[in-house]
């Protein structure tokens, strides 16, 4: 290769590197697939599959499990807490309690693109997309029997504005609400874009956010009365997260941190009482190092994994079924992201 061309290539390569170092802080590395596994004891009774790391209409109230010797229908799974229940605004659907203990204003389909009411009886989006209102169902209660109100929903949205440990999509939506920035930086006492009227909460947006409905299919309202005078930044440190009270089809019954958590059907659930008698969850993250051992011992009836080695082993168990969810993730490499110490 002639020397001038070589020199030009060298210069161009250096320019690319300079651009990457100065301008790009993420580089896509590879795609990762998600797999849902189920034992042959579980029957979804026709309900579909979707992105298990988020919340979608999976119809768990209708699921059934083969009864054990005592006639009890127990579903074994993982992603129970080891030390505390993670608040549900960060990793939206990873933990089993986020999926079954907390409900949302809306519910998404498996592809997270179509929405229908859940805690909300109805919702309305203005033509310009700048105003969204949700009307709650009548008679909604938390698991402790106290009423679930629009005040709880408003408190949850305002609290989530104050903390960084909120999923970015959700965070972007709630920070698009009119007056959110003034409220979160302390220059306003309330959020001008949140209005309550009877059983209806209306959100007025300062800028258009295309993910409003997606956000409210993932954002779980919390019972405000359990967090009196809490510093929002310390919300995860509240004792509430040792045994949370939610609004979903299952309520937390027994917690032995780092051992197991049991969840039983919420008898007053608006969508009917779940057919499974008990969910027993063992602690793990979404990457469960003990998955194969527990599955082999019939102590893993449902869950998801992104570990392809686990998938192969699960498929070799004749009582397990693995369903790939067509929702590839992109893994990224972050450059110069963390400050040097």
């Amino acid at each position, binding site marked *: 290769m002639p020397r001038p061309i070589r020199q030009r290539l060298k210069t161009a390569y250096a320019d690319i590197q300079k651009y990457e170092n100065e301008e790009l*802080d993420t580089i896509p590395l590879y795609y990762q697939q998600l797999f849902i596994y189920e034992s042959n004891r579980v029957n979804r009774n026709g309900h579909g599959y979707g992105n298990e790391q988020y919340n979608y209409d999976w119809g768990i109230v209708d699921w059934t499990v083969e009864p054990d010797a005592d006639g009890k229908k127990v579903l074994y799974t993982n992603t129970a807490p*080891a030390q505390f229940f993670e608040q549900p605004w960060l990793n939206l659907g990873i933990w089993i309690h986020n999926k079954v203990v907390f409900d949302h204003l809306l519910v998404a389909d498996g592809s997270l693109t179509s929405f229908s009411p859940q805690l909300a009886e109805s919702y309305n989006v203005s033509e310009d997309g700048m105003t969204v209102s949700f009307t709650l169902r009548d008679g909604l209660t938390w698991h402790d029997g106290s009423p679930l109100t629009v005040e709880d929903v408003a408190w949850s949205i305002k609290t989530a504005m104050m903390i*960084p*440990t909120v999923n970015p999509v959700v965070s972007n939506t709630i920070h698009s609400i009119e007056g959110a920035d003034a409220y979160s930086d302390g220059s306003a006492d309330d959020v001008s874009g949140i209005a309550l009227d009877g059983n209806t909460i209306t959100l007025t947006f300062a800028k258009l956010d295309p993910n409003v409905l997606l956000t409210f299919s993932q954002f779980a309202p919390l019972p405000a009365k359990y967090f009196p005078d809490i510093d929002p930044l310390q919300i*995860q440190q509240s*004792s509430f997260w040792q045994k949370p009270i939610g609004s979903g089809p299952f309520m937390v019954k027994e917690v*032995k941190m780092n051992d197991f958590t049991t969840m039983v059907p919420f008898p007053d659930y608006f969508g009917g009482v779940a057919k499974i008698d008990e969910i027993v969850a063992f602690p793990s993250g979404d990457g469960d*190092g003990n998955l194969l051992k527990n599955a*082999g011992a019939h102590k893993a009836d449902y869950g998801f994994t992104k570990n392809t080695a686990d998938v192969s082993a699960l498929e070799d168990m004749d009582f397990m079924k693995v369903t790939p969810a067509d929702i590839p993730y992109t893994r*990224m490499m972050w450059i110069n992201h963390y400050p040097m110490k």
Partner: protein
Amino acid sequence: MLTYVIRRILILIPMALIISFLVYLGLELTPGDAVSHMISPEMMASISAERLDALRVSLGLEQPFIVRYWIWLQGMLQGNFGYSTAGGVAIHAILADRLPATLELSAVALVFSTIFGCVLGVISALKRGSTTDNVLTVTGMLGVSIPEFFFGLVAILIFALKLQWLPVGGRLLPGYDSYWDHLPHVIMPALVLSIMMTAGVMRYARSSMLDALSKEYIKTARSKGLPEWRVNLLHGFRVALTPVIVLIGFRLPVLIGGSVIIEQVFQWPGVGSEFISAVRSQDYPLVMMIALLSVMAVLTASLLVDILTALIDPRVRLDK
């Protein structure tokens, strides 16, 4: 003796301080902090630096390293173990939850290994050079050299997955009302944990028994016409026990620190697995407390061994 004990206790304090400082420094030198563990890189990329800083301030992470260490130390001196950074749970509550599990597992393993190790070591010594001795020696070597996680996985495969005699892991299940309900859970991890300990005790007991049996007083006992079992057990084994007790004494810290590997393999909710998770999440107060407990256990065990040695063997003079 008393002067020695007081001196040793006084030495424990600066040693514990130095070690705690080194552990804190080690944590500080690792990349990231508790906040970078709480929030995934994907999310971190879209959160402003100001909001992250606010979270750091609320968790007390904005202070310089030495100030944070000093605050932690002050709390410790006042009996305040602090709170876990990750979930705000009081550390004394976490330890109250995890320590019984670790104590249970380690105590059972310690008892198993002491009994089996001593019995097999004595048999090996009494049958020196025989096939039994050779088999036990080789078995002991294998026990010491094969990693315990391997034994653990093989045991799970055979006894839990194939034979289904024992549970695959964990300590408790819903509906357990008594200790007997969860006894099957402790058997496998305790036996696996005791394998390496048994092998060590056995080899130690064998060599000290052989040493004791070669002493003049054993010959004297035999010449007096005492039955062989009396000579071996009352005269030989009693003396051979001293170094074995020292070895077991040095293993006492495992009662507090737990077995990190075995707890992970068997999903045992003890201090060891909690320590791993606390290090991963850079939960400084929790890591420091567990590390400090382990350090104190090691130092105390070392002191106890010295005292026991002096009590058992009159030739040892601790004051000199």
